[in-house]
């Protein structure tokens, strides 16, 4: 199956892109996708685990099974403001 992946804020910079398409085996989960992305793009290593993952704009747990055509967004906590 194929899913659309969106990156936000610092993970978009680490990924070098704001979006990409990923091929996954059937029954793949959000955690599987995370592992694949971190393997394919070493600069993402260790980053996606800190992100909230949203499937089709709803935040989900890493164990969530994906379906063909899903859109998966990785959103890091952004602080900033005062210092």
């Amino acid at each position, binding site marked *: 199956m194929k899913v659309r992946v969106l990156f936000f804020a610092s993970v978009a910079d680490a990924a070098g892109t704001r979006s990409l398409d990923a091929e996954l085996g059937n029954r793949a989960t959000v955690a599987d996708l995370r592992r694949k992305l971190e393997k394919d793009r070493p600069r993402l290593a260790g980053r996606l685990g800190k992100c909230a993952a*949203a499937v089709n704009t709803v935040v989900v747990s890493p164990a969530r099974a994906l379906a063909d055509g899903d859109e998966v967004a990785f*959103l890091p*906590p*952004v602080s900033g403001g*005062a210092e």
Partner: protein
Amino acid sequence: MMGFTEDQIHRYARHLVLREIGGVGQRKLLDARVLIVGAGGLGCPAALYLAAAGAGRISIADHDAVAVENLQRQILYGSADVGRPKAETAAAALRRNNPDVIVEPLAVRVTAAGARALVKGRSLVVEGTDDPETKFAVNDACVAEGVPFVIGGVVRWSGQLMAVLPGKTACYRCVFENPPVTPAETCEAAGVLGPAAGAVGTLMAVEACKILLGKGEPLAGRMRVIDFLAGTSRDIAWKRRPGCPACGAAK
């Protein structure tokens, strides 16, 4: 008219004619007790707009002093303020804008230990620090005390904000379970566009007004994520997470 002074009727004239505010709403704003955590890039514009709007009692908490690097985005301060305490300096700027508002500077760092006492009894809290621990401390304290809050962040050209209505909508810990082990990216290291901070802080003030007024659809149960460079924004919905250590047990 609803016990407003002559000055108030003129000062808040553009609110008084708004159907969603009027005299009843302006009275709600004037009666509000707001805590602003962090007088930085987000807290400055949020505090200034809330003071100008007549949010009647504003406490503003920041333990830091103004640094010259802050001036690019922390618009309550000028060059002459470098080295001065932020909370005091911000409070003076808010009083200058609107003497109608009672402003209390708090020169404290908000931690898990002290947060609950600080948020207790507030109508609303605005969280705009760059400190993940403070963000989670404010979340947990507001959820425990049932105080609605608006939380935001900005770095580089990206911003995010959301409101939390405790017991009704997902809290910050429903999405981000814990403060990151390694520090989140800071503005100091990564940079930030000044007006991007201004835009997010201002949106936080808009959400604060909606919640205080009880009008419109608050940005709760969803986080708005803005990419100012791409010119796009997106809402990501959050459901309350069963077993959330902060709000899972909230009644």
